[in-house]
């Protein structure tokens, strides 16, 4: 084993075959272990000495272990390959060939091995081509090496360390100074301190611990009588903790039967949300002895503690009022009579939803327009249908001329406005009407300013009236109170959205430019004022100067209709979200009162011309009647009282009441429904 290694190192030397100092030093390392210092020095000097001398030395060194010297001197060469076909395996020290041993055949060697009890100790040395039998000592050494111990059993690697320096019993301390005096006298400062303590204990400043312990019941009268009066200064904002809830019947150990939930109810609690679930489920115990200990007692007490120091406290005003007291005190309805309450007449005949109605100024006739493409005139008192015009299109709005000597009906269709002669009145009026509704030369009234006219006035042949053709869809129409002028609104008409027409001259103009998308426009009932409602605002114009006076902020989402009080100073605005705003023009530009009346769109709001009434109609199939007294005294706010809810119309395609109008003289209300019926409500 060791041999091989030596061979290796020596062969290295051979390969390099140079005599460097470095190499020599490496050599020295190797050799030092074999205690051949002298030989080594020789070696260094005679660096040219070859491996043979090396080998000799090795032989010498290993003589104690290996008796038989290695005979072969070929070195570390691949023996099997190079000497495979040779008869020798190498050369001995003298240069003679060493013959190969005759090969034993496998069977013979196996039999021999099986017979030989020492066979397990034999190993074959390929290098020398011989079999070596290991002695027992050698095997032991191998085993020790394998197990990581020293090869020789007699070597003790852990011998006790023997210090090179002896120091015991030598009789000389490090410091030879004598003990100081202070080691032998009591401390002065300690004495002072003790004296101090003694003095303090005697004076009673310090209590000995035994006395201290005897203080269990140190209670005394904490609240003397004068504390009641003197010390009553609690910290500001102190809120005492609310008292825990007192138990009800259900918490009894034996509650009445009705407080115990049934099994189904208990099961249904499982389906509830965690928060909604009742925390305590009543149970019934038939006698006191069977009541178990409450397992959540400590936990609940703890929770209460947590609440007390963790929960923020604020004083909450608990309202304990009678809900009725919240309701406003309204004047009795009896005092505000008359007002429409009950349905008196129904006007049937239309085939589709009635979009619009209008009552003629005399209060005798009612005109209506419907989606079935007809406009009708009814006699109010009898409900007889007097006249039918087949207009062929959906009648969006219909309007009587307010002047009694001009019984003209204005009907709004998609793009057209028809001015029809209703045929009412005596012959004088009729002849006048014929004149009025006659256009001599078609297309004569071209709009002067605009290259493309907004409106064309054409003679309508079929119904003997005038057809005003608009350039875009018309939404509403409104007559001036004198009956000569009227306005139409074309919402998508941009700068030509509001049109003013003069019937006598068959003339149209667009005085108002810069507007948003207008919804409706109305005339002031007595003054030269004009109101234009856009989606969110109502603009008030002075007609004589053509300039804006006021802008009313409704605060609603979308205005659907407006109506002017006959006095002219108050406006109501109905919106598509069901809200109604009352404006007092002299008070403010903001609503004086906003009423959330309907659950659906308001379709129409309207004032009564003589009675202090107004009404609103909505798609939720109701119409509300309100009382409104407007005082001449400016300091007094108008009085608005809801009076009556009129029901009766049936919903059709999500729409309810489409229009409502008051009778000009009587406190009657007409409503037009989507169920193609017109109703008259009387007092």
């Amino acid at each position, binding site marked *: 084993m060791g041999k091989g290694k030596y061979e290796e190192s020596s062969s290295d030397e051979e390969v390099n075959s140079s005599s460097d100092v470095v190499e020599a030093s490496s050599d020295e390392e190797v050799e030092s272990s074999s205690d051949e210092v002298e030989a080594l020095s020789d070696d260094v000097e005679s660096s040219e000495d070859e491996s043979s001398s090396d080998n000799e030395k090795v032989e010498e060194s290993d003589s104690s272990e290996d008796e038989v010297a290695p005979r072969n001197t070929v070195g570390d060469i691949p023996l099997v390959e190079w000497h495979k076909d040779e008869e020798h395996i190498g050369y001995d020290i003298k240069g003679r060939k060493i013959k190969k041993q005759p090969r034993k055949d496998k069977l013979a060697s196996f039999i021999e091995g099986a017979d030989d009890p020492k066979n397990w100790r034999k190993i074959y040395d390929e290098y020398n081509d011989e079999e070596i039998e290991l002695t027992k000592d050698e095997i032991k050494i191998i085993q020790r090496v394998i197990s990581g111990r020293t090869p020789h059993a007699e070597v003790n690697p852990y011998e006790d360390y023997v210090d090179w320096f002896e120091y015991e019993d030598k009789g000389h301390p490090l410091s030879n100074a004598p003990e100081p005096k202070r080691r032998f006298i009591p401390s002065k400062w300690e004495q002072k301190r003790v004296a101090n303590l003694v003095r303090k204990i005697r004076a009673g400043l310090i209590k000995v611990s035994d006395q*201290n*312990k005897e203080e269990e019941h*140190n*209670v005394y009268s*904490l*609240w003397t009588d004068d*504390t009641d009066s003197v*010390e*009553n*200064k*609690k*910290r500001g*904002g102190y809120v*005492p*903790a609310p*008292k*825990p809830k*007192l*138990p*009800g*019947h259900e*918490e*009894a*150990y*034996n509650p*009445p*039967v*009705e*407080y115990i939930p*049934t099994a189904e109810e208990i099961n249904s609690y499982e389906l509830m949300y965690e928060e909604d679930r009742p925390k305590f489920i009543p*149970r019934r115990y*038939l*006698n*006191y*002895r069977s009541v178990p*200990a*409450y397992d*959540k007692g*400590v*936990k*609940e*007490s*703890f929770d*209460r503690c947590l609440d007390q*120091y*963790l929960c*923020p*406290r*604020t004083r909450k005003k608990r*309202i304990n*009022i*009678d*809900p009725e007291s*919240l*309701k*406003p005190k309204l004047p009795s309805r009896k005092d505000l009579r008359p007002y429409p309450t009950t349905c008196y007449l129904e006007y049937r005949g239309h085939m589709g939803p009635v979009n619009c109605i209008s009552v003629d100024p005399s209060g005798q006739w009612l005109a209506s327009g419907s989606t079935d493409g007809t406009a009708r005139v009814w006699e109010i008192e009898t409900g007889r249908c007097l006249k039918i015009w087949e207009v062929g299109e959906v009648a969006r709005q219909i309007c009587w001329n307010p002047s009694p000597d001009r019984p003209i009906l204005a009907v709004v269709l998609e793009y057209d406005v028809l001015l029809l002669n209703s045929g009412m009145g005596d012959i004088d009026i009729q002849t006048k009407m014929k004149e009025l509704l006659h256009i001599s030369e078609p297309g004569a009234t071209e709009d002067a300013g605009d290259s493309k006219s907004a409106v064309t006035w054409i003679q309508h042949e079929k119904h003997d009236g005038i057809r005003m053709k608009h350039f875009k869809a018309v939404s509403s129409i409104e007559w001036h109170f004198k009956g000569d002028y009227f306005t139409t609104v074309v919402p998508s008409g941009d700068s030509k959205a509001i049109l003013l027409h003069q019937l006598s001259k068959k003339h149209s103009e667009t005085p108002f430019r810069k507007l948003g998308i207008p919804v409706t426009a109305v005339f002031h009932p007595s003054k030269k004022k004009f109101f234009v409602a856009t989606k969110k605002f109502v603009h008030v114009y002075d007609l004589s100067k053509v300039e804006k006076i006021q802008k009313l902020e409704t605060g609603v989402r979308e205005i659907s209709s407006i109506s002017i009080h006959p006095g002219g100073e108050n406006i109501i605005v109905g919106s598509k979200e069901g809200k109604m705003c009352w404006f007092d023009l002299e008070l403010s530009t903001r609503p004086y009162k906003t*009423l959330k*009346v309907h659950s659906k769109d308001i379709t129409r709001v309207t004032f009564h011309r003589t009675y202090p009434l107004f009404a609103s109609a909505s798609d939720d199939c109701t119409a509300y009647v309100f009382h409104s007294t407007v005082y001449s005294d400016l300091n007094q706010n108008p009085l608005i009282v809801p*009076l009556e*809810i009129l029901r009766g119309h049936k919903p059709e395609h999500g729409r309810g009441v489409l229009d409502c109008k008051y009778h000009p003289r009587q406190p009657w209300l007409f409503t037009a429904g989507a169920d193609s019926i017109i109703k008259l409500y009387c007092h």
Partner: protein
Amino acid sequence: MPPKHYRAPGKKKEGNAAKYITRTKATKYLQVSLNTFRKLCILKGIFPRVPKKKFEGNHKTYYSLKDITFLAHEPLLEKLRHKRAHEKKVKKAKARKNKELAERLLNRMPTYKLDRLILERYPTFVDALRDLDDCLTMVHLFASLPAVEGERIQVKRIHNCRRLSHEWQAFISRTHSLRKTFISVKGIYYQAEVQGQKITWLTPHALQQVLTDDVDFNIMLTFLEFYETLLGFVNFKLYNSINVKYPPILDPRLEALAAELYALFRYVATGSTRKPAENQSISSTEEKKDSDEKMDTCVNESDLQLAQLQHQLPSNEPGALMQLLEDSNNDDDDVDQDTIECKTLFKNLKFFLSREVPREALLFIIPAFGGVVSWEGEGTPFEETDEDIAYQIVDRPTQGHKFLSRHYVQPQWVFDCVNARIILPADAYMVGMVPPPHLSPFVDDEAEGYMPEYAETIKQLQATAKKNVMPLPDLDNQDLADPQNLIADGVMDRTQANEAAEERRKLQLLEKQYHDELKMEMSGITYSATLSNKKSENSGSEEMQHKDEVVVPVSTEKNDEDDRAKLYMSRKKRGLYEAIEISNQRKKDKVALLKERKRKASASKSG
């Protein structure tokens, strides 16, 4: 946080940021750990606030800055710091294995007192009484916890809690100020009235309590620390008010028998234990001292003795003064009608508690209502064989041997009697029977809108009892020597009383009608509607159709009226109105559910 007069640049002078401080900042400002801060807050009664604007974020806890500066000036803060420093010393000594020093230091641990804090939090005694609910509940809970070494709670403190709770109960019982009792699943609720304050507390059932792990006992013990001190001072004051020395010295024999409460009763009853003769006289006036049967016969004698003794005593002797004071006090006490009623409920009745009955509760309640109670065991006032026992409280399936002279009732009978303030017939509460439902005295049935059946029967019983018993107090005051006179007067009184009762009942009827009407008005039923309802009720089933005709239009009209008024309300008011309506509806639903269940239960019973 800067000191008061210095304001750092950029610090707010006003507004929420100047008024409130977050908890983290507060602990930093006070330089204390969160635990110490918590302890301080608990002891000082400081709680978080809700600023209008949470300037540091929504998930923070805010305290009023004034509260925190108030804490900063608290001497207790310094004390707690000292304590902490001292604990460190102990720890150090222990770590160095210096046992002697550690022990010495432990003995000298700095302590603090809470009396000043109590006075600060409750400037007047009434304030303290007002806030006593939680205190009593907590002390009673801890009194019932197992007093075992090695548990999380010191045994000493549990014993202290027991003592305090017994002292409190003794006082309540002695002054007859207990008003209501209620056995719930959670425990027994008591309500007492002390100096006009209603104090309600809960005692757990006398069973082994469960100590759960999800509870931080440090917090509870801090609360308990405060409550113990508070209750100690309150008890002192109360005992003082009835001229009894505090802390009481108990009979060691009874204490050993775990009958502390009874021992306390005796102590309280006997006052300051100056002279036996005095004691007897006191107890005779109060019907508290029970063991002396001969007392009644020799009242005159003892009075004589008392007079002599008082004469003999020097005038500046405190005992004599106390005696006098007490007598006058007693007179004052009797002015309160409620107390008289409570005091005389079980008067001249003897109770005996069987073994299995939870003794402590009944031992507290029965004397509080003037009864005399005994139980099985040593040192009891009287034996089970006593012939005068009127009621024996039993809680077992069957009773073997029965004395014919007494009623055997279940414990619930006592509680129900107390709540009804009359002696209820014991038939329903006999042994082995299922007692009638136990009702909470804290519920106002009329406000709730539903009256359980048993409440109604109790009410009837009360009414009849009142009719019969009313003249009796007068009777008692009559001269006993003249029986004829007595009878005549008695008869007179009876008739008068009957008349009076009749009138009262009429008045009550009227009043009730008025109240009903008021209530109806509140709930939004108009007079006409009720009229029509009444009419419809009166007109029998034969006129069903007619009724319908009448009622329906009225109701729609009413609806209209409602809608009309609602239209005119502002949005805020409308919301409020609707919320009230919803809550009313919920209440109604609850009542309807109860009625439905009741109907089903009775149907199933009959069917």
